[in-house]
């Protein structure tokens, strides 16, 4: 039975021998119904861990640290209870495996193919819901059981048939630059992290004027516009600003590169995604008003990094599109690289940054040159633009070369090792 959802559910295997992987792949493609595919770690939705191998628990911990909200199915002859893990006792039948995979997909709030639920699979061991608390720097964050997002707050699906209801984020919220990195991490874990920051829209013909309209969005009709208006004004005055929202006001303190966001990550995302008939109001704060506004800052709700917030809001708002008015043919140049170790990484971000840093290239040509989807390029552009990191330059004297660098093979091997051990 083929998947009705369109998008394959991607699985990475951990600690499995090649023979077992080959067998698993055959099962997924055949009797499993072909809605799951094996993939690399970075792009996977869920993981299957061989729980009986030596070092299985270490492997589990490592993977959990790397991907805190990714469901992990643990295969073992014993009953293993691990946080946020789905235990599947060996020997198991194919439909028991598929049931576990459906549970994993449900945990990510993705639609699942309809199949009867087998009673043989142990329910996932969900960690208890953890209220927002700052964590010691060295601790591994506890992952609360992800709750499904409120329907109204879900990102609007794009026209693509493979659009998922909630795009995913793999957030690099370690945020060492921010004075409250643990709070940023807790915020990211508090809601379900979407898998892809770039939306799901397929590439369009940029010469088709009708299709072209879907490529742009107007920041002024979103929270993003109000944030940037407030920042532009307050930076000149060296003041703070308050942006009113339907929840509580967001306080911006540009002089300290920080902000106060008295709402959950999910609420902020919901605000970012929704086009608004009237943009949120903002006002400059006097020093006294700023002090009063920041009295609500607490250990449970500390200050956050301004750059990180603007980047995320831009990505959520853009969903793989470009701000209105951008010239697709003007070469894009990075003023400087974004702080990518402390910002949510979009797919191919490093490659796009390297290209725009070295050779200004237009938004029209970049996806073709790098052989990446348009939405990856446009999402990265929109996020960089939010941090004022991009400019449009004159066309380069020579177009960027697509000839491989002599050491490319070596560099690929280095990348493979770096990513394999991550």
């Amino acid at each position, binding site marked *: 039975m083929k998947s009705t959802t369109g998008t394959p559910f991607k699985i990475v295997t951990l600690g499995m021998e090649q023979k077992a992987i080959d067998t698993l792949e055959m099962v997924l493609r055949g009797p499993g119904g072909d809605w799951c595919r094996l993939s690399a770690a970075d792009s996977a939705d869920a993981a299957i861990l061989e729980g009986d191998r030596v070092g299985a628990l270490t492997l589990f911990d490592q993977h959990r640290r*790397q991907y805190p909200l990714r469901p992990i199915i643990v295969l073992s002859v014993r009953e293993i209870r691990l946080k946020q893990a789905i235990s599947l006792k060996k020997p198991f039948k194919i439909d028991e495996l598929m049931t576990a995979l459906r549970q994993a997909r449900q945990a990510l709030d993705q639609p699942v193919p309809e199949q009867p639920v087998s009673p043989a699979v142990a329910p996932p061991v969900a960690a208890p819901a953890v209220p927002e608390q700052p964590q010691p720097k060295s601790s591994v964050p506890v992952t609360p059981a992800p709750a499904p997002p409120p329907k109204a707050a879900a990102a609007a699906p794009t026209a693509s048939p493979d659009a998922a209801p909630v795009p995913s984020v793999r957030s690099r919220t370690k945020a060492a*630059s921010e004075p409250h990195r643990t709070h940023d991490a807790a915020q990211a874990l508090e809601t379900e992290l979407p898998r892809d920051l770039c939306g799901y829209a397929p590439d369009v013909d940029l010469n088709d004027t009708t299709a072209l309209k879907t490529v742009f969005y107007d920041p002024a009709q979103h929270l993003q516009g109000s944030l940037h208006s407030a920042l532009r004004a307050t930076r000149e005055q060296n003041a703070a600003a308050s942006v009113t929202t339907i929840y509580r006001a967001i306080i911006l303190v540009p002089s300290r590169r920080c902000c106060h966001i008295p709402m959950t990550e999910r609420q902020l995302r919901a605000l970012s995604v929704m086009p608004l008939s009237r943009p949120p109001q903002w006002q400059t704060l006097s020093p006294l008003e700023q002090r009063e506004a920041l009295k609500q800052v607490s250990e449970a709700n500390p200050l956050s990094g301004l750059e990180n917030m603007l980047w995320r809001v831009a990505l959520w708002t853009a969903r793989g599109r470009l701000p209105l008015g951008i010239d697709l043919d003007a070469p894009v140049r990075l003023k400087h*690289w974004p702080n990518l*170790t402390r910002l949510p990484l979009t797919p191919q971000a490093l490659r796009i940054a390297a290209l725009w840093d070295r050779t200004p290239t237009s938004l029209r040509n970049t996806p073709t040159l790098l052989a990446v989807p348009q939405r990856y390029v446009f999402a990265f552009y929109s996020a960089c633009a939010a941090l004022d990191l991009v400019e449009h330059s004159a066309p380069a004297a020579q177009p960027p070369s697509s000839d491989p*660098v002599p050491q490319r093979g070596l560099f690929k091997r280095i*990348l493979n090792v770096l990513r394999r051990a991550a």
Partner: protein
Amino acid sequence: MSRAQTVNHHKIIFTGPVGAGKTTAIQSLSDAPIVSTDAKAQDMTAQRKQTTTVAMDYGIMHLSDNERIHLYGTPGQERFDFMWSILTDGGIGLILLLDNTRQAPLKDLAFFLNAFRDFIAKTSLVIGVTRADLKTTPYLDEYHQELDRVGIRAPVFQVDARSRDDVSLLVQALLYQLDPGLSE
């Protein structure tokens, strides 16, 4: 040596002032315990660290049975700068780690940019700013202003030298700078 036994060697250089995290960063990446020639620190260094690398740090990444990446950390003290040109010879690129809690990190940046200028011009540079969580200034845009002033372009990331992910991203950025066409 037969062709089957030939081993290809490459190197990446880590540099920066004393205590910036070079030894720790190499340790984060190395497949084997690093070789570190530490000696008890004297002079001003003692105020920052108990030990300091007198000669160099060495770590290794095994790409395959016959290909290795050697990770060299330069000694942090200026009196050992004669080692730097020896170490960089034939290197893929330079990772400069700067400690944001030092008295004048931007001066450190200017110093190392000048010291390694020729190597940077031939290869690639990435800058990792450590301990920015302990002291937030100077901000990254101040590092970028210094780079602009001397006409060098390089990524600047905040890193925790103990974090393999952070150090790995520095190396990845180094490679992509050399070859943006490199696919993921």
